[in-house]
């Protein structure tokens, strides 16, 4: 938060950015002088150190949980999502506290946020591809062909072939009947002509 601060001399107070180093948003000149006179125990910096040590302890605990998770959980399905959740918490803690993003100018957060969005998109699309790999493999091995799986297509082809055979038989029968009818007709015409 690097905004120009008001003239300390005019107001008698000095506006400080919100950070782990400052317990208060404003310090009077007297307070600042007191702190300056007490370099051995600069309570604000000490306060910051304690915050960082606590964050470090939380990170260590989260790492221990990550490692112990397979022993703690029977359900393997939630193992992956839980690990990712723990990873994100650790990521936010390090980026927020150790890299000072929560105290610093928001521009830095925008830079990291935009990058992480792109990386998430990148890895996400890769995972989508990974999820469809089994189908791609079956296509490459010829198990899936145009129209469905190989077995489905074979069954369909057999059914079509069988149906064609039936049609041919039926067509042949129809042809015989037509031929007989035509022959009968010709015969009748000849008989009529003989009678005349």
């Amino acid at each position, binding site marked *: 938060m*690097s905004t120009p601060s008001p003239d300390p001399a005019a107001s008698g107070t000095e506006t400080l950015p919100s950070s782990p180093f400052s317990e208060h948003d404003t310090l009077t000149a007297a307070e600042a002088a007191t702190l*300056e006179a007490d370099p051995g125990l600069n309570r604000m910096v000490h306060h910051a150190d304690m915050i960082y040590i606590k964050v470090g302890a939380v*990170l260590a605990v989260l790492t221990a949980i990550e490692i112990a998770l397979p022993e703690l959980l029977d359900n393997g399905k939630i*193992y992956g999502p839980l690990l990712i959740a723990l990873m994100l918490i650790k990521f936010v803690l390090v980026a927020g*506290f*150790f*890299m000072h993003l929560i105290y*610093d100018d928001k521009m830095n957060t925008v830079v*990291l946020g935009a990058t992480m969005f792109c990386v998430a998109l990148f890895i996400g699309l890769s995972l989508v591809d990974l999820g469809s790999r089994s189908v791609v493999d079956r296509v*490459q091995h010829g198990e899936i062909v145009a129209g469905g799986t190989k077995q489905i297509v074979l069954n369909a082809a057999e059914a079509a072939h069988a149906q064609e055979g039936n049609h041919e038989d039926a067509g042949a029968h129809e042809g015989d009947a037509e031929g007989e009818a035509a022959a009968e007709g010709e015969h009748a015409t000849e008989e009529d002509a003989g009678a005349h």
Partner: protein
Amino acid sequence: MSDTLTAPASPAAESDHGHGVVHDTNTGISNEKLGMWVFLGSDCMLFGGLISTYLLYKNRPLAPGVTGSTERISEVFDIAFTSASSFVLLMSSLAMVLAVTSIARGDHHRLRLWLGTTAFLGAIFIGGQVYEFTEFVREGFGYTTNVSASAFFTLTGFHGVHVTFGILMLLTLMVLSFKGRIPQSKSEAVEIVGLYWHFVDVVWILIFTVVYLIP
């Protein structure tokens, strides 16, 4: 690069990593710091690509048309050992942030102490990685064993190179501090190196979970 307009009047503001200092830039923050953030952003994309590549190949040791071993490198991971390495790197991040607070309050002795601790912990991590790689080679997994192994070594190797560069920067800061060339007013230099170090830690948090822990 970044001219400072006003210096904070109190030690509290001075000790605030230079946050109390207004920079004469469009963003109000120093160009050096923003430059480091942009670099880290681009580096993040690099690691995103490497992680994606490993994910795509980790269960497919043999790509179409490529010969090699059919075994997956994840079968020889030593999770307990890598967990210890991860813990060491996390603690190095804590040491780094304590170094930043030390220079912020003008404590040069503690600055050197924490910088040295950070570099030492980073060196332990690198030593562990070298040991891990050696074990993998003994198990029969070299860089060209299959695409899965190649993707793994490329990803973790790049991270190792980053850690090594970080250690060199930390040692450089220590030397500069001994020479008295890092006054309290230039604490931002330590903070910028700290940003790089924490980034390396953040990337390892991703790699450790995605590569080592998720089956």
